[in-house]
């Protein structure tokens, strides 16, 4: 089910019987109709194993299940909201940036350290983002939060995109990521340009970048 953007900081979702929506707990602003909100202790679908995975991964953002029939408005902390429509591909996003998403999407967590070897391991530490990222796969819509507006940059073979790890929001598609360094000897002795680490994304898909280097 699609999200309707009311303004840059608020989205509206339509819920119909038989359909489920997950949202970050407490992100509901208003609703019309007969809608119920139940805390989702399991942290989404996928049962017990997924829950454990989430605990270990630190990707345990409390979610709630939204069901019924009506429309629900979501927003959180005055953050900007970007709606991303998935058509069969996988979205990679930090769990705390998820505002709401289609219940039909398959959830999982992915160990980012497995990409890019040692630098991948370092990435989590450097960026302040976790080593694990939530994945959503299938057909449906996702509303993602960002500080400031979001730009979407396409990634095509032969056209890699480099992103400041602090400004990175999410990406989707068949994309490889690795942490690249632009660190020379000079940067090491404290004359850095402030752009010492970059996330290098290659393949085909798109990356979402926020107009700020602040975390949510």
């Amino acid at each position, binding site marked *: 089910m699609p999200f309707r953007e009311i303004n840059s900081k608020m989205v509206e979702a339509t819920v119909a019987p038989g359909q489920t929506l997950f949202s970050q707990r407490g992100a509901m602003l208003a609703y019309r109709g007969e809608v119920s909100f139940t805390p989702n202790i399991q942290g989404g679908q996928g049962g017990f194993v997924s829950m454990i995975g989430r605990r270990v991964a630190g990707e345990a953002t409390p979610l709630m299940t939204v069901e019924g029939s009506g429309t629900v408005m979501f927003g959180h902390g005055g953050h*900007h909201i970007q709606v991303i429509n998935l058509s069969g591909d996988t979205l990679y996003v930090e769990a705390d940036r998820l505002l709401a998403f289609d219940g039909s999407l398959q959830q999982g967590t992915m160990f980012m350290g497995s990409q890019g070897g040692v630098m991948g391991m370092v990435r989590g530490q450097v960026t302040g983002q976790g080593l694990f990222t939530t994945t959503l796969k299938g057909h449906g819509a996702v509303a993602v939060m960002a500080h*400031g*507006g979001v*730009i979407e*940059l396409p990634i095509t073979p032969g056209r890699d995109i480099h992103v400041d790890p602090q400004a990175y929001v999410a990406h989707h598609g068949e994309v490889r990521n690795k942490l690249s360094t632009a660190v020379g000897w000079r940067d090491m002795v404290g004359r850095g340009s*402030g752009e010492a680490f970059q996330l290098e994304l290659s393949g085909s898909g798109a990356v979402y970048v*926020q*107009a700020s*280097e602040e975390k949510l």
Partner: protein
Amino acid sequence: MFRLQGSKTLAVDLTGDAVKAKNGSMVAYDGRMTFKKMTGGGEGLRGMVSRRLTGEQMTVMEVSGQGTCYFADRASEINLVALHGEKLYVEASNLLATDAGLRTGTTFTGLRGGASGNGLFTTTVEGTGQAAIMSEGKAVLLRVSPQYPLMVDPGAYIAHQGNLRQQLQSGVNFRTLMGEGSGEAFQMRFEGDGLVYVQPSERNTVGGDV
């Protein structure tokens, strides 16, 4: 080659040339880029010394390469300014990027710096090319002509260009001292011919409490 992607991200297309930008403001790029911190804002030793003294120490990096580089800073709105040989006066904290060909320097602004919560010095950008300045909320561009001077809240002032004289004027009177302040104790008065950029938000100023 400066263009806005949304209102909060600056995209700069580079074809082997360079751009000066606030340190750490790159959010993404494609192509090949190199980032180099500039010593003292890139005006040699004198510039560096004056920067140290004035506190207008913006740390600048030079970005050069081929491709598109995207800049943003704390979700601020970005305004593009085209300069044709004239001088732009801007607070260092509001300057995001300039063409590498533009010269940057500092000038003494007098008392108003103290009241506006900024330093006593302001950054100048001069030459021909483009600059990107930041504001909290969308900035408006107000024209000043000899018949129409303009008064601006120091906390809402961002930048100005043209042939303008500025002075700080105080609205402090007996009532203010008796504790009935209007909250608008100080204004910047601009006279002459030029443009002033004003943001719809106020930084904390000394005058704000009076």
